[in-house]
């Protein structure tokens, strides 16, 4: 298996399309950093408008590396599934399109091994992409904007909340958030892999993955009780942004934030378990379908 995984990673590393995702992430991050460096004050004024009379804060200090990373992740983690699909949806369909699938299947490797190795490679790609995001969005932002306490703007029902996390309480939250995002995005990789089995070129599964993510995200954002109760709990998109939970710091009876705490760890844990269940179901389905498939390409 290890040898097969090495081969798979070697193939991925040699494909130009692999690097599109890394370039796209870097481009978006640099645009954000440039915009905030040039005119971040206006953004901060807008966000703090409602509390300007009751809340005093050094607005220049508020735009620091930690804050920048949070803003960037808020935007990027919605778009990244498309970049994941670029690679994962190509896993089987790309081989079918090139004609190498029949050669692959005629080797002494089981079809289950092929699916598991493809999935592992897509997961590793996801981890590398998130590491790249961490380097560009977090560490580069810290280098450009410096470190400081972090403001988190949050909508909770009809209310808006501003949370303050002290600088010595942030890094572990980012580590946990990136780990959560890896699991969430691995669901996308698993979905793309499953769809990839049905196609003989990668365009179809990429588009199908993106469509499913968009439709499910829209449904996840519809606030109708019947959907809240019967549909949303089963949609993986309801849990994709669960990483934010690591920045919702717990408060005491007086409303003061408690260092190192989380507002709702059980909810985060439940979300993680549901995402892992999705991965398990999608990969099991991939193995079952692929084992039965006649390779006619």
């Amino acid at each position, binding site marked *: 298996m290890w*040898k*097969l995984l090495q*081969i798979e990673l*070697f*193939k991925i590393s*040699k*494909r*130009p399309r692999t690097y599109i995702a890394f370039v796209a992430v870097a481009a978006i991050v640099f645009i954000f950093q440039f915009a905030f460096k040039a005119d971040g004050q206006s953004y901060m004024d807008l966000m703090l408008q409602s509390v300007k009379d009751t809340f005093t804060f050094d607005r220049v200090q508020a735009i620091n590396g930690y804050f920048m990373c949070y803003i960037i992740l808020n935007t990027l983690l919605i778009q990244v599934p498309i970049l994941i699909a670029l690679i994962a949806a190509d896993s089987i369909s790309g081989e079918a399109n*090139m*004609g*190498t699938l*029949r*050669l*692959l*299947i*005629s*080797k*002494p*490797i*089981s079809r289950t091994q092929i699916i598991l190795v493809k999935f592992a490679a897509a997961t590793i790609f996801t981890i590398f992409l998130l590491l790249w995001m961490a380097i560009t969005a977090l560490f580069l932002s810290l280098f450009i904007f410096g470190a400081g306490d972090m403001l988190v703007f949050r909508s909770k029902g009809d209310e808006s909340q501003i949370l303050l996390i002290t600088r010595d309480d942030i890094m572990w939250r980012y580590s946990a958030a990136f780990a959560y995002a890896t699991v969430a995005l691995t669901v996308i990789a698993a979905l793309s892999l499953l769809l990839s089995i049905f196609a003989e070129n990668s365009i179809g599964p990429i588009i199908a993955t993106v469509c499913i993510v968009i439709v499910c995200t829209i449904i996840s954002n519809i606030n109708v009780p019947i959907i809240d109760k019967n549909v949303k709990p089963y949609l993986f998109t309801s849990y994709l942004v669960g990483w934010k939970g690591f920045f919702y710091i717990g408060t005491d009876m007086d409303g003061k934030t408690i260092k190192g705490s989380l507002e709702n760890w059980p909810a985060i844990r439940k979300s993680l378990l549901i995402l892992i269940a999705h991965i398990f179901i999608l990969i099991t389905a991939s193995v079952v379908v692929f084992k*039965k498939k*006649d*390779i*006619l390409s």
Partner: protein
Amino acid sequence: MALIIEVNHLSKKFSDTYAVNDLSFTVNEGDIYGFLGQNGAGKSTTIRMLLTLIKPTSGEINLFEKKLSAHRSEILKQVGAVIEKPDLYKYLSAYDNLSIFAKMSGIKVSQKLLMQQLQMVGLEERAKDNVRTFSQGMKQRLGIAVALVHNPALIILDEPTNGLDPQGIADMRNLILRLSRELGKTILISSHLLSEIELIANRMIIIHKGNKMVEGNVAALLDPAHTLIEIDTLDNAGAKQLLLQSKWALFIQKKIQLQLMMNKTEVPQLIIDLVAMGVQLLSVNSSHSLENYFLSLTTQSGHVEAFAN
């Protein structure tokens, strides 16, 4: 002699159509086995079932005297194949492709061995070049190298000369003969050209619409005793009546045209007798009956009785 391939009552049904229907054949150790049929006859479907790309609807496949479905990995380690087009990773070099497929076959190969394989197919100079820059012939040769890199005992080649120029076809033929004679490999080669199979195979099968039509030793099937003679005269009906009353009656085929199946060596005597009977000959053409039979399958215009099941 060991049985390398044993196919028993193999069938594959797609929707309502049988691509392969109750097919049985055997390939012995050291055979170059020709798998002949027109396009769509079921050759590739059978080969895909031999390589586990497709699951049979019914029937059994044994390779190396072991059941394929039960010993898949163990068996496939001993099989090398080029299936239809030799599609490889275009964005990788010839060397990388070879290296990857060698590792997938479960063997450790040295750089020296890989280069030797490339040298054998005349690609050592292009080892580091991406496959996307290769001609069809070069891809075909690299495909052969990939099929051979793990030193398999059985080589399956599906239409290996497709898209090759005459020199490429000759090179491929020589390579196949060398693999058989010098290295003792068992080779199953599919083709839609009888002339190609005739030159290299020692045993062959013809399939049509998924059914076996003929199987046997190539030398026997192409025996001059099975020469088809077509005669054209000014009065074919009259000539046929005369022949029916002569010793040649036994050889006449039940056809409207005047056809006889006989040994090629007897043709001069037939011509002498026809002239003696006063038949006004326009032409006498001889061709091998198997070739005619195969052509008749290709053109869908009936078939020669000698080989009909």
